[in-house]
């Protein structure tokens, strides 16, 4: 089997006495779409912050592209090809959409004209072309989510961490954006996504990891995970799996 693009080995993170992420080992295959799910407060976003260098792990190592990148700062990891979006969108509010995307494009294109062209290309790809010159703070929620995606894409990542890009969108907006995410995979970008919208997880992800209370409780295909006892109990409470089984039989 080929070496995974991202490989976490026993990664933990403590905030004082609170263990936010405890001994998580998981890996993401190159070229895949992998989902990370779990109830609220499970530590998913913390795990993303660890992978993208915004936080340092208290224990464990993170390997990316065969190299130990534990504790490297976020800007360095971005240069290595790890892009991320934020759950709470973080636009550069005072700038236009074009300028927002260009900040990311400058990472690989130091010259102004090249960066401009790259930014416009990304905007076309995610469907932001009509609003290129609009100030970022005038965008709708769906527009902001697309902008969040566009900024990260403009850094030309190999591994893209998507933190709930579908949250807050209505069903038709979700339908619109799912092909965009699939398009990323076709372009050879490996995607690791945190998502609560199960319809999207089921249709997009090949591999699913389930986090609950900071620990990995299940992994596998979306179907296998959805039927997993521990997963059902994590979402619905202790004993729920048994009761569900009784009801359905």
């Amino acid at each position, binding site marked *: 089997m080929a070496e995974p693009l991202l490989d976490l080995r026993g990664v933990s993170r403590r905030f004082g006495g609170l263990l936010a992420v405890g001994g998580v080992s998981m890996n993401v295959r190159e070229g895949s779409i992998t989902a990370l799910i779990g109830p609220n407060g499970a530590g998913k976003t913390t795990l993303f912050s660890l992978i993208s260098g*915004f936080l340092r792990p208290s224990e464990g190592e993170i390997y990316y592209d065969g190299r130990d990148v534990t504790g490297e700062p976020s800007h360095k990891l971005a*240069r290595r090809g790890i892009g991320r979006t934020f759950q709470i969108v*973080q636009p550069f*509010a005072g700038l236009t959409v074009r*300028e927002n995307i260009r*900040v990311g494009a400058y990472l690989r294109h130091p010259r102004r004209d090249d*960066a401009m062209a790259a930014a416009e290309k990304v905007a076309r790809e995610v469907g932001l072309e009509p609003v290129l010159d609009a100030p970022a703070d*005038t965008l709708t929620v769906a527009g902001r989510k697309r902008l969040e995606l566009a*900024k990260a894409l*403009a850094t030309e990542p190999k591994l893209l961490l998507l933190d709930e890009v579908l949250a807050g969108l209505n069903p038709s907006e979700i339908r619109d954006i799912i092909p965009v995410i699939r398009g990323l995979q076709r372009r050879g970008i490996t995607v690791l996504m945190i998502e609560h919208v199960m319809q999207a997880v089921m249709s997009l992800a090949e591999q699913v990891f389930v986090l609950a209370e900071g620990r990995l409780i299940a992994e596998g295909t979306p179907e296998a995970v959805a039927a997993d006892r521990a997963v059902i109990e994590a979402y619905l409470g202790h004993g729920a799996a048994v009761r569900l089984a009784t009801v359905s039989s």
Partner: protein
Amino acid sequence: MKSFVPVALVIVALAVLPLFVQSNVVLNFLVVTLMLALAGQGWNILGGYGGQYSFGHAIFFGTGAYVTAILQVKYGVNAWLAFGCGMVAGAVVGTVVGWLAFRAGLRGSYFALVTLAFAEVLRIVASVAPITGAGVGTLVNLDMRFSAMQFQSRAVFYWLILSLVAAALIITWLIERSRFGAWLIAVRENEDAARALGVNALTVKLGAMVISGVVTAAAGCFYVQYFLFVDSHIAYGTWISVEALLTPIIGGAGTIFGPLVGALVVRALGEGALLITGHAPGLDLVVFGMVLIAVVWFSPSGIIGLRKTLLGKFRRPAAEVRRG
């Protein structure tokens, strides 16, 4: 700003001004205004573009002034060379203070307070250290020669300060168009988002601090050549820290011409108030305060941003109707 044309036009227009204005009073007014604009241009790079509000840009102004004065008086260094050394000293101070403050992760009001504290410490040290002339200050000998960077004609001083202001305008214009500038603005708008996009916030802020330091230090160096005297209150006093941040904020922080417009408006109003009231002490400060309140109230993006603010006021209701 995309085009270089407005920058070139402003520089040329200012350069031909002494051909029409011979009054020493007016020229003196313009020289001091440009000097304050230069100090503000330095602040604008770090504060306006980078969003790092310094309350202590006197550290640069004063260091430039003292280095220029002391090198000439105590070590007999050529004035032009001393001037250059003063600017380099601004870069060194910017590196040290920036490294300490940004490494510690100080942002917003914490950064402002630390710069203020540095300026105060330097002011107190300068008022007792023998090398600065302590409480007496340092006097540069009158020597009206080109090699001593002293000129009989006010117009020559005017062109000297104008060339420095022009250089700062061009530097600002280049920053605006560069990757460094885009990253600097990104850090101002949202530091975490910038870091996620591969921006090394620490080096970007440090770079801005160094450029900012050089530009504001140049204003201090010029002060010494023009007035031939410096003491701890002039060099590191809060007056210059306030002037350096007031001119860009009133004119338009984060715009190329903000400090220049701000300095002209503030100084014209201040001088005008003094003239009308027969030099009532402190009245120019009252005017400064009123202008600042008016600007912050009506147009937080300064005089340059006034047009946009007004346009926005007319446009916004329409947008709301469409949404509802």
